[in-house]
């Protein structure tokens, strides 16, 4: 992308990463305040991956993500309002409040969740790509998943099927070195992920996941290859989770020092340095972002609870619902 070099674009990338960062810092507060419940998996530290990749996607491309998907949702254009309302469980949320943090959906954005089963989204992504091929549509389906998912059988089956049928899937592995408390070296007998991907016969690459512009460039290359009809691509983004796995994690499995080392490569700080974005400019962007997030919290607060009478909605299509239980007692 030519715009990539313009500092307008750099500012855009910074703003996008900051939106994710501030949104999630606020989510952590809202969790402590009891406004958000259940599981909350923060993406803080990994913002460059989602933000970088989204730059390479068009509106008609599809996204499949995991339970750690707030960053992807925001970067994809789902409003902070709809997302925060979903985190609160309000019916104004992007999933009507039914899904919560782990199940963000937006049909218009072709954002297919928000899947809480590790590797469960990969086969679905393969199918979305298959539908595009069958309909003769030139699109790519990008599937985000973690290093932990690579050990699952569904990873193997999906990689093989997509490569065998040359389907337009971008397998985007966010390698943050840990699956909950399990380091990749204790999960995979061999940790060179692109090498693994190549044995399926698909092009594979690895990129510094803390460098948003590098991610954008690598994703752009991969998407171009997929759209050129070369079949699926695999891209590993080497990144790190600054926060605990979830709000219940005591982090017994890693050294504080390791976390500190990685924090030095904070993707937001890195971009500021590289692109010389000064304090004043940063403060201005940050203020705007904080305003957006504050508004999102207000929106979620003002949101409404779905009436309990509607409990059994969304199990079957409305048309059906009446007919569904003929003799329901």
């Amino acid at each position, binding site marked *: 992308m030519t715009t990539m070099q313009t500092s307008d674009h750099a500012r855009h990338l910074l703003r996008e990463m900051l939106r994710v960062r501030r949104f999630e810092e606020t989510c952590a507060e809202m969790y402590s305040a009891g406004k958000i419940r259940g599981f909350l998996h923060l993406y803080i530290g990994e913002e460059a991956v989602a933000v970088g990749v989204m730059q390479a996607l068009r509106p008609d491309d*599809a996204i*499949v993500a995991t339970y750690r998907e707030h960053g992807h949702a925001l970067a994809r254009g789902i409003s902070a309002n709809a997302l925060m309302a979903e985190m609160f469980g309000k*019916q104004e*949320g*992007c*999933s*009507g*409040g*039914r*899904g919560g943090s782990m*199940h963000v*959906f*937006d*049909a218009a954005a072709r954002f*297919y*969740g*928000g*899947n809480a*089963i590790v590797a*469960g989204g*990969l*086969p*679905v*992504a*393969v*199918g*979305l*790509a*298959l*539908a*595009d091929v*069958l*309909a003769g549509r030139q699109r790519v*389906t990008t599937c985000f998943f973690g290093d932990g998912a690579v050990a699952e*059988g*569904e990873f193997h*089956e*999906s990689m*093989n*099927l997509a490569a*065998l049928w040359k389907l337009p899937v971008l397998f985007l592995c966010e390698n943050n070195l840990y699956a909950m408390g399990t380091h990749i070296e204790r999960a995979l007998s061999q940790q060179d992920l692109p090498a693994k991907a190549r044995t399926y016969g698909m092009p594979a690459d690895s990129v510094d996941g803390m460098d948003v512009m590098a991610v954008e460039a690598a994703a752009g290359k991969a998407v171009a290859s997929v759209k050129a009809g070369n079949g699926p691509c695999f891209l590993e983004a080497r990144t790190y989770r600054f926060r605990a796995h979830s709000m219940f994690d005591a982090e017994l499995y890693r050294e504080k020092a390791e976390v500190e080392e990685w924090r030095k490569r904070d993707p937001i700080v890195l971009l500021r340095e590289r692109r010389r974005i000064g304090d004043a400019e940063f403060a201005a962007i940050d203020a705007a972002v904080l305003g957006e997030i504050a508004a999102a919290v207000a929106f979620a607060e003002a949101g409404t609870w779905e009436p309990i009478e509607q409990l059994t*909605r*969304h*199990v*079957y*299509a*409305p*048309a*059906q619902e009446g*007919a*569904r*239980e*003929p*003799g*329901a*007692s």
Partner: protein
Amino acid sequence: MSLAPVNRTTYREAVREAIREAIRRDPRVFLMGEDVGRYGGAYAVSKGLLAEFGPERIRDTPLSESAFVGAGIGAALGGARPIVEVMTVNFSLLALDQIVNNAATLRHMSGGQMSVPLVIRMATGAGRQLAAQHAHSLEGWFAHVPGLRIVVPATIEDARGMLWTALEDPDPVLMFEHQTLYNMEGELAENAGPVDIDRAAVRRPGRDVTLITYGATLFKTLAAAATLAGEGIEGEVIDLRTLRPLDMNTIFASVRKTRRVVVIDEGWRSGSLSAEILARVAESAFYDLDAPVARVCSAEVPIPYPRHLEDAAVPQSAAIVEAVRALMPAPVSR
């Protein structure tokens, strides 16, 4: 009873014809599964379809149940109308995560935004001496899951007609074809087409006892009903057709009349679908009953290989007759 000319056919051909019609009728429809193409289908259901429609719409998959079932879900999300064949229910255990955690939940988790118009077909049941890993009857398990619709064609008409109706459903439909039915011969109206999948069917009317079943055991139940008729006991045989949602109206109407119920289910007794039906009758039609509810199911044992043990393990007409006799008032009192 249609007036149109009828042809002799088989259950297998009826399913094939239904697939052929669906593919012809809707460009979004395709069939995918293990060996559905070049091999012609493990039960020869899709034989000839590859030559007719080509590899785009008759897709052989690798041995990857989770991936191709999940791909069916994704393709449905993407606007296609996939028919996914899981060779047998025994292998569907490898795809349960996709079926239960994705197909059945996506509409709900997305607040109604997502729709999964997918049909998954599988062969089911015992009866061919395939032993413990190849003889499961797990329809009842799937009928437990909100978000799924479960249909079981027992007759040639339903084998021919249920698929299109299932494909028109905006939600995932699982269709179970008992492996002993494929060779069943019968007549089918030339103009046979889609059938409703909302109602159970009374396959034989009767006043004395309600016999509720589905799938291949329908025919063992009808045989038992014939035997019982010889003894003056008129059984009303209900073919459930759809296991989720259950058509309780048809069941309750029959029970109000007969005041006796026997469910025949090839699943292992404990926790099979038969339990749900007996429970609903005992909950909602308790005062209509003149006798305890009863059932004839498979013994609580993995299906053994030898014919005599397999026959003893699954429901047979004789056992159904026995169960009914035990429910009827002593002859003197009649």
